[in-house]
């Protein structure tokens, strides 16, 4: 079949055994690849009783049918159960690793077991070699990538963990292609629990395309569309994602001091516009990406990638820090050590609030830029107070008797949009299958950015419907394993056209939306079996009870309950958030 190679391998690191996993004939059509196929495989291999850091947990690296063919198809998904949230989790990363994994001969790789000592996997021509990584243990992600490339192939793409993953920090990330990160949910900790330091993929296998002429024409058309679009053709390449700093601040929903305020007086100094005029060296792009939103940057002391919008907020405004160079170097440190910047910043914000209240023993103060890098380092190595930070904000706040000081949903820290400023985004945070995440349904699009339609951000009307739709579309795009930024320029019919051109199949837009809905419901069903229900589809009391004190979102709180009832009804779930039997049956789950 075109698109998919039809080869998913499984490696047991305890025994060293390998096998090709047979996939039922209809799974590719019903789950596509990436997030969808990964979650389906995970739920057949593991149960809600599986300990995320135990040897029998599965860690799945998955591509989709489009990887290596169309624009932005270098991405991959990592799927497992999150040690931070205990929900099902998938984490996405850009770069080229997803395309090169297919060029190395695999659609995906399932890893179970635990190696007796550190190893890395070299994957080439569909074969997997387990190699010693004892000499790599302790290296940061950049050193590791360089070393593994040196030991395998100069064109290898390497995904690896840093010290944070080795030490099983609950929000450790996986880095690939220098600074691209599968950041959220602690997939790096799962990798570290398996004594797996890195995966190196390299090869020249071509991904079969059913209709190359049609794809050539489509690509030429898309190049023009992306170039002409003011966001994908101008704003993102020139200013990157941090262009949102000033925009969110102008709406009074740029979180400051652990979400106690929504306006940051020093926003200009950490904005995308400021980064472009001060630190930016050049744009950087993922595999076959015409947008190039990445930022190669340099401070007086170091160079690296970023910071992206989420990171400049998490390590900046959220902590009351306005020193752009310190924020940027803290971002570099998170990348090198292998830490999710959002959870790192959310946890530090929680610690600062607890310290300000006098209930936390650490020496933490709002605006302390000078200590930022050492806190991050201590977290990655689980040293001193860092061992407490390494557990994330929920566990930290619970330990000190102030669980409401953790700005999280289901244990995952909420990113850089105060939910009181956008009711739909609030519902999306509350109902996200992997916890406080903006990428399950980016309601900031319609509620703030006016894309693809404009909606009143303070109204709850129609928000349940659009959150459910956006969740389904996001699950679909993550399963095609393409970049979400493409959605700024094209609609679902373009994704259908891509999929049919590459695979030769006859998907309709409706069928693809149904695939998205099936995947989202499958994830929800896993979470329900793991004990999650309506009680967990909530937000910290701050957002439900405390009004924002100033700015254009002043006096707002989230009106969650009225949206939640409607959302469950649209989803075909009962009042406790459990999918009804007829919903399960209709989706063929």
């Amino acid at each position, binding site marked *: 079949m075109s698109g998919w190679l039809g080869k998913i391998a499984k490696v047991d690191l305890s025994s060293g055994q390998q096998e090709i996993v047979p996939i039922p004939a209809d799974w590719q059509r019903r789950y596509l690849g990436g997030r969808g196929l990964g979650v389906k495989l995970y739920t057949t291999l593991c149960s809600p009783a599986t300990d995320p850091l135990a040897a029998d947990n599965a860690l799945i690296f998955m591509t989709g049918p489009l990887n290596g063919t169309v624009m932005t198809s270098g991405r991959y998904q990592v799927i497992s159960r999150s040690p931070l949230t205990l929900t099902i989790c998938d984490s996405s990363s850009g770069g080229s690793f997803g395309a090169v994994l297919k060029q190395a001969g695999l659609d995906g790789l399932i890893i179970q077991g635990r190696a007796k000592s550190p190893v890395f996997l070299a994957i080439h021509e569909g074969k997997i070699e387990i190699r010693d990584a004892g000499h790599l243990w302790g290296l940061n992600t950049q050193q590791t990538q360089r070393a593994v490339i040196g030991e395998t192939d100069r064109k290898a793409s390497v995904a690896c963990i840093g010290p944070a993953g080795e030490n099983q920090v609950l929000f450790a990330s996986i880095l690939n292609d220098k600074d691209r990160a599968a950041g959220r949910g602690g997939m790096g900790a799962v990798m570290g629990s398996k004594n797996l330091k890195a995966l190196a993929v390299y090869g020249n296998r071509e991904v079969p395309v059913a209709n190359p002429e049609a794809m050539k024409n489509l690509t030429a058309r898309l190049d023009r569309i992306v170039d002409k679009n*003011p*966001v*994908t053709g*101008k*704003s*993102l390449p*020139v*200013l*990157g*994602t*941090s*262009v*949102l700093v*000033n*925009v969110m601040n*102008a*709406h*009074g929903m740029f979180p400051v001091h652990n979400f106690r305020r929504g306006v940051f007086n020093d926003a*200009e100094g950490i904005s*995308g*516009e400021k980064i*472009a005029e001060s630190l930016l060296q050049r744009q950087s792009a993922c595999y076959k990406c015409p947008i190039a*939103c990445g930022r190669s940057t340099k401070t007086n002391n170091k160079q690296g990638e970023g910071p*992206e*919008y*989420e990171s400049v907020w998490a390590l900046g405004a959220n902590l009351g820090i306005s020193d752009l160079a310190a924020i940027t170097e803290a971002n570099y440190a998170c990348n090198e050590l292998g830490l999710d910047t959002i959870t790192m910043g959310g946890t530090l914000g929680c610690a600062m609030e607890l310290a300000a209240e006098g209930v936390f023993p650490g020496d933490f103060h709002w605006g302390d830029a000078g200590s930022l890098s050492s806190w991050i380092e201590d977290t990655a190595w689980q040293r001193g107070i860092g061992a407490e930070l390494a557990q994330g904000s929920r566990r930290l706040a619970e330990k000190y008797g102030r669980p409401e000081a953790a700005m999280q949903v289901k244990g995952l820290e909420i990113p850089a949009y105060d939910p009181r400023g956008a009711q739909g985004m609030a519902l999306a945070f509350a109902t996200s299958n992997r916890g406080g995440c*903006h*990428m399950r349904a*980016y309601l*900031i*699009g319609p509620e*703030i*950015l*006016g*894309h*693809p339609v*404009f909606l*009143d951000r303070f109204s709850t009307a129609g928000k349940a419907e659009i959150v459910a739709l956006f969740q389904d579309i996001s699950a679909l795009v993550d399963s095609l394993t393409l970049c*979400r*930024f493409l959605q*700024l320029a094209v609609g679902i019919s373009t994704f259908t056209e891509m999929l049919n051109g590459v695979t030769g199949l006859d998907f309709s837009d409706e069928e693809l939306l149904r695939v998205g809905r099936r995947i989202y419901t499958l994830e929800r069903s896993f979470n329900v079996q793991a004990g999650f229900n309506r009680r967990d589809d909530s937000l910290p009391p701050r957002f439900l009870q405390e009004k924002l004190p100033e*700015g*254009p979102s002043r006096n707002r709180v989230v009106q969650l309950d009225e949206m939640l009832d409607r959302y469950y009804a649209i989803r075909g779930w009962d009042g406790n958030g459990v999918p009804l039997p007829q919903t399960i049956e209709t989706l063929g789950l």
Partner: protein
Amino acid sequence: MNVAERIVVRFYSILRLRLKTERVELAVAETTIKELLHLVEQKTGQKFLAELLDDAGEMLMGTIILVNGKNIRLLKKMATKARGGDTVDLISPVGGG
């Protein structure tokens, strides 16, 4: 100039790079957004409306114009009034996340 007699207009994203300034102040007691954009063009000496509007003068998808933090799409769009003492934010289409 008295605060009540001036409108502060702030620029973000590509628009700021195009105009090479963060803001201008207009000595106007009251005007519509449509008129205000033309006044800004006169003041800056730069034709920038294509960054925000289509050929018919309507806002492009993704253009954000705020008067004191409130989106004019929820007010009277281009006919929305701005008055002395107001702050108007002009944001050419952006994305991210």
